[in-house]
């Protein structure tokens, strides 16, 4: 039998109605298999959505994670923490998938060692940071607002500097969090060509 004939036979087999299984079994079985697949998919998604996963690669652990540990989002008087996915992965499912697809490019970078040393990371840092700034700017700092939101801020409890900026420029939507709070979680790249610095 030639390959073509063989595959034609296979096609015929696949398209033939089932002889042994009832319609009910096939429908139900398909349903269960669907649940299992969906569950596994989301479980895998959840596993990649933890800080432990993010810092399992040394590029993240030795650079951004080490820097985060010195900041208010790692240690503060109330003991509430922000983890990597809190700031870097959207909560909406579609947005989350879109972000994950983008992240596969980052895995590419990992495999080919684009940022395998601190020096390489620093060289690449401006570009990486600009991606994140653009994302925060485009979604009006959505991830920050999952935890902080202007309407719930007690302006009177803030320092005069903070209260002034938030009332003057945040309230009316003229600026968003990332415009003023760059470098809140990590060290900054070379800012000499970034607007508003120097």
């Amino acid at each position, binding site marked *: 039998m030639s390959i073509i004939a063989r595959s034609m036979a296979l096609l015929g087999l696949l398209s033939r109605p089932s002889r042994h299984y009832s319609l009910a079994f096939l429908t139900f079985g398909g349903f269960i298999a669907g649940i299992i697949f969906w569950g596994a998919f989301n479980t895998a998604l959840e596993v990649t959505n933890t800080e432990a996963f993010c810092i399992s690669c040394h590029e993240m652990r030795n650079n951004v994670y080490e820097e985060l540990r010195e900041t208010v989002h790692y240690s503060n008087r109330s003991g509430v923490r922000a983890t990597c996915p809190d700031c870097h992965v959207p909560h909406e499912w579609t947005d989350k998938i879109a972000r994950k697809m983008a992240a596969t490019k980052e895995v590419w970078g990992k495999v080919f060692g684009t940022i395998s040393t601190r020096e390489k990371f620093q060289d690449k840092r401006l570009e990486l940071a600009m991606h994140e700034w653009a994302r925060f700017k485009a979604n009006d700092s959505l991830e920050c607002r999952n935890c902080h939101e202007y309407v719930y801020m007690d302006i009177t409890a803030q320092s005069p500097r903070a209260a002034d900026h938030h009332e003057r*420029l945040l309230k009316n939507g003229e600026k968003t969090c990332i415009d003023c709070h760059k470098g809140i979680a990590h060290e900054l790249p*070379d800012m000499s060509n970034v607007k508003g610095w120097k």
Partner: protein
Amino acid sequence: MRHQNSSRLERARPAMRGLAAFTGILALVVVAVTVSAVSIAGPRSGTVETTEADALATLRGSAINMEQTSPRMGKEVNTDLRPVRNYPEQPPTIPHKTRGYKINLKVNKCLSCHSRRAVEQSQAPMVSVTHFMDRDGQVLASVTPRRYFCSQCHVPQLDAKPLVANDFVDADTVIQVIRAKGN
């Protein structure tokens, strides 16, 4: 003969046991007394008598070999209220917190609010013109390298009790005193 000897030993055994027990207890008592004596005397001999001279000689308040409980950290002043300057050339102290504000070759967080162009948004006082001058007094286009590292001269303040008294008086007070004496 042999048998006799061993039986004599046998008879001496209880007495030896008693002696051993007695020396054991004695040793224990001696050790206990020494330990407690040392632990009572210990801190006293380590503490420094705080006389006037000692207070000046050390702010530490105890001997060098003593572990101290560290004092609570003061809160960084964050009132945004300008404090008085003691003389016109004094670099003003910083009236806000500076946690996480990096100054290095790549970034200068301070200038993101205090530079000429940033003050419109930040409403902070601009660095004065002296910050643009090189050592010949020539005014440059941007902040001079001599004044790039702000924390060399400007420091935030803690809300803490001063460790030593300060009897600095400013020039106005000196002039007043001199005038009062002259009159």
